């Protein structure tokens, strides 16, 4: 069967089982948008290409499958860069297809020409400029495979317009040939045995679980392993929910704004069992003083993460699900020997959790505390819902206060810290999980970076709750200016009424709500919860003076964790 390159793009996506794509047409990709009309693929027309890729990320986060976006050349492709980098940092499987100017025009500074493979090389797992029409199916199949396998990540395929118009005899490649790409899935047997033996000698062991657990769908194995050896578990920002927060062994989130007990558990530990995590600076703080007494078992599918930031005693390269399964078998065989004697340690962690809870005093009258708003949002939409955040205070509060109960329930931009992530990512998440409520808990700064995508949510009937934690400031920047720049506020004010978010909702033809007091908050959420078939905006005016604590100032040792602003001031006065 003779097909055009453009038809081949659609047939390839169909062959891969892609049902939903996020995109924006334009000159060089135009040929592909014609066969799209007949293709068995739903296309969500975003309002900015950055929205397309964040939506693809949201879709990938919630489904575990590859999120796909299609855009044209030049500025459209360069608009993907932030999302590609975001997906690379958080290991999100994304396939981006970009149109390119005709191959005869490449290098001539043609209209809407950009060196897209060059520009995106450092922000993709892999990319390819397709050079023959026959190559299109294999290029897309390989890209999809690379995106979803090993350590997942974004892969971009750039296709010149003339190739899209050429015809060739359609052939879907049975096999793909990537001689330089063979991710190691199974852990080394001897290392696995060494790991469990080492656990047996520990008296203060802790599992340090990262986003790799979510990516590998290894939550069940993680819980089984933790229960088998009674190991406490801390979960990083990207791993929240891989063990329910109310589980006896769950300790909370480590890091700069982590829970006290989780931060201290890592610091005081004599053995870190690091699973699918990368010793990010936001977790370790000052590396030299991070978990200073701990030996380290490090399991990761990316060999380059092992030993990158922290020296490792037992390295295991492999897929988290497979390796934890191996660890469970190895431990079961010699349970009496390798189950650590750590009851006192667990008791100590429980005591720390009890004595050092998150602090937030919600006055009965007076402004809504943001933590109160977020708890009320969770109470309203519950554990079935997917919660999506941007970056900043609202993100940290959400990660701290919501009692996460399952993986893929919490989607946010971790590694890159991309403001504006939430609105498009929530739309993508809803496309991927149409039967779950999807709630974007966004900041007023983040929201204004990408809220144009609400139009896409309305147009394509993708109902998402956009709850804006509106404090009228770039809150996290303000917090740093307050604490570290002597309260000299510089360019952090965003007037709470500009734009008027209720009127904005009206402009999009969707319900808009505002809550400024505790009573209003409950009323508004009750009303909002009744609406399930429409997107909506909820403007929650919160106390602008509330700050995120605990906090470890950047680059400081984790032992210097500060639990409240009063404690910070007392320390600052003492110095």
């Amino acid at each position, binding site marked *: 069967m003779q097909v055009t390159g453009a038809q081949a793009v659609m047939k390839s996506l169909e062959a891969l089982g892609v049902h939903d794509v996020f995109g924006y047409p334009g000159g060089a990709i135009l040929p592909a948008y014609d066969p799209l009309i007949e293709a068995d693929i739903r296309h969500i027309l975003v309002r900015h290409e950055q929205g397309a890729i964040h939506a693809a990320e949201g879709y990938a986060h919630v489904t575990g499958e590859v999120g796909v976006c299609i855009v044209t050349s030049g500025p459209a492709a360069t608009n993907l860069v932030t999302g590609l980098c975001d997906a690379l940092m958080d290991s999100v499987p994304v396939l981006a297809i970009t149109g390119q100017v005709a191959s005869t025009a490449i290098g001539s500074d043609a209209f809407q020409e950009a060196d897209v*493979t060059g520009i995106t*090389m450092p922000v993709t*797992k892999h990319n390819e*400029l397709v050079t023959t029409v026959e190559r299109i199916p294999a290029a897309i199949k390989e890209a999809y495979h*690379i995106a979803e396998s090993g350590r997942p990540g974004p892969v971009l395929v750039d296709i010149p317009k003339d190739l899209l118009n050429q015809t060739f005899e359609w052939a879907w490649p049975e096999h793909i040939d990537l*001689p*330089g790409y063979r991710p190691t899935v199974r852990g080394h047997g001897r290392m696995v045995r060494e790991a469990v033996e080492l656990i047996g000698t520990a008296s203060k062991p802790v599992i340090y679980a990262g986003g790799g657990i979510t990516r590998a769908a290894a939550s069940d194995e993680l819980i089984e392993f933790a229960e088998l050896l009674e190991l406490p578990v801390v979960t990083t920002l990207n791993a929240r929910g891989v063990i329910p927060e109310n589980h006896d062994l769950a300790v909370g989130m480590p890091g700069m704004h982590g829970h006290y007990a989780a931060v201290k558990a890592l610091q005081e530990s004599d053995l870190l069992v690091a699973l699918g995590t990368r010793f990010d600076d936001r977790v370790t703080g000052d590396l030299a003083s991070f978990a200073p007494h701990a030996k380290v078992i490090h399991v990761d599918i990316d*060999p*380059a993460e092992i*030993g990158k930031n922290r020296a490792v005693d037992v390295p295991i390269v492999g897929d988290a699900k497979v390796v934890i399964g191996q660890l469970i078998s190895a431990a079961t065989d010699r349970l009496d020997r390798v189950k650590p004697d750590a009851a006192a340690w667990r008791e100590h962690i429980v005591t720390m959790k009890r004595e050092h809870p998150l602090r937030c005093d919600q006055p009965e009258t007076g402004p809504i505390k943001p933590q109160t708003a977020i708890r009320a949002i969770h109470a309203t939409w519950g554990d079935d819902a997917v919660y999506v955040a941007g970056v900043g205070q609202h993100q940290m509060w959400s990660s701290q206060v919501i009692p996460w109960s399952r993986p893929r329930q919490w989607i946010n931009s971790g590694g890159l810290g991309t403001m504006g992530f939430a609105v498009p990512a929530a739309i993508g998440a809803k496309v991927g999980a149409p039967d779950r409520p999807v709630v974007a808990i966004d900041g007023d700064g983040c929201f204004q970076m990408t809220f144009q995508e609400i139009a896409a949510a309305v147009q394509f009937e993708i109902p998402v709750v956009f709850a804006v934690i509106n404090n009228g400031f770039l809150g996290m920047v303000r917090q740093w200016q307050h604490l570290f720049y002597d309260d000299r506020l510089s360019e952090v004010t965003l007037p709470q009424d500009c734009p008027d978010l209720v009127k904005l909702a009206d402009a999009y033809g969707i319900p808009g709500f505002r809550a400024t007091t505790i009573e209003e908050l409950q009323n508004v959420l009750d009303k909002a919860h009744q609406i399930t078939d429409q997107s909506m905006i909820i403007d929650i005016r919160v106390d602008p003076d509330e700050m995120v604590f605990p906090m470890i100032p950047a680059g400081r040792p984790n032992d210097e964790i500060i639990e409240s602003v009063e404690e910070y001031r007392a320390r600052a006065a003492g110095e």
Partner: protein
Amino acid sequence: MQLVSEGPEMNNRHTLSVLVENKPGVLARIAGMFSRRGYNIHSLAVGPTEVPQVSRLTIVVGTEATRLEQVIKQLNKLVNVLKIVELDPSDSVELETQLVKVTAEAEHRSQIIELADVFRAHIVDVDHESITIEATGTAGDLERMVALLEPFGIREMVRSGTIALARGSRSITDGSKVRMQRVV
């Protein structure tokens, strides 16, 4: 990426032989990775191998051991990279090639030619005012030759990156993933 000149960190030098798929942009990926992660390249040479689809890079990296491990691992993550071998300097042949155009007045001509002979270098071009010498050897040999030629006046010179092979009959292209591409 910083192209570093000869420095005191000579003992931090490591020679990597890297087999890559011969595809567009591979060199840019490798150079970009070094640049992005702040690794130093002392020299880089690239050329074909006995397998048409495979190119071989010889990269001399200046870094300590733990960082070298990262360099190798990050290189390995590139999809087009097939194999990386660190060559043991005591068990491999490492050579560079240099062309030096030396001012050659009539009275110095024989002296220059003698010097070239000592270094087993060849005269590849001569005119009334200059001699161009081609020499192949270790970096140290070439530097010593240049130092001795300097008093005559060096007009211009060019030096290749290091190329290297392990001694003995072993071949790093023997690996199966490379082999499968070999044209029979």
